[in-house]
């Protein structure tokens, strides 16, 4: 009798070990860092424009950046977070992606 293909001869336990582990999609933070050159009004404008935030919320985040050196401005899926960081870089803001 012809031997079975290797994947069938393997025990279920071994097959399970060789499959990629699925990790839960953890959220990522988009962080804006302070810099001395960007104007406060400009940073607020960019946060409104990129994230669609209301003026009050964007201003609060900008002030957090200004006072504490950084602010988590958005949290969510990695792909969207990358897109936001790219948009912030396009506006010349210092922004990074971080795990919470």
């Amino acid at each position, binding site marked *: 009798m012809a031997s079975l293909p290797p994947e069938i001869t393997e025990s279920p336990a071994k097959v399970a070990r060789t499959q990629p582990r699925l990790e839960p999609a953890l959220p*990522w933070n988009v*962080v804006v860092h302070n*810099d*001395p*050159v*960007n*104007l406060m*009004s*400009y940073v*607020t*404008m960019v946060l*409104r424009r990129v994230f669609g935030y209301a*003026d009050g919320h964007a201003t609060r985040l900008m002030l957090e950046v200004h006072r504490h050196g950084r602010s988590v401005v958005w949290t969510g899926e990695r792909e969207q977070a*990358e897109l936001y*960081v*790219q948009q912030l*870089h*396009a*506006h*010349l803001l*210092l*922004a*990074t*992606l*971080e795990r919470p």
Partner: protein
Amino acid sequence: MKIRRRRDGAVVVSEIPQPVRLALLRLPLHLQISEGDSAHARLFPNPGGDADLGELWAEWVRPDLAKSFDTAERTVGMQLRRALGKESAEAGLIITPPLRDAWMHVLNRARLAIFERHDFSEEELEVKFPGEITTERDLLRWELAVYQVLLEVLVDAECEP
């Protein structure tokens, strides 16, 4: 110099004095940034995340950003040459809403480049217009202030249409 906003959202800068005209004409000079330049890392910052993201950024995102930066630079450069290239008592600029983004980008980028390249301190930024321009550093501070004023006007126009 007079700065006003038209009903259509355009920012009109008229009766531009010679020192401001020269500061604006020097904008393209501050935008020339090569890879070895100290301002380069500031304009193309690290995205954080992990090594994969760094590679993705280097291969795809940075070239894309560089292209959009070049487009803004060319747009503003063309307008500067047309409007202010010839010395004239009537020197003026009209920055219409479609041109606003390019102008904000260029003014901001020039400020960032000057700051990084010439190692300015935060305190130096606070003293806006230097009383007397006797050194190149004074001139750069004067330019930082001129660019800031125009940038503030454009941000206002964007936020309060």
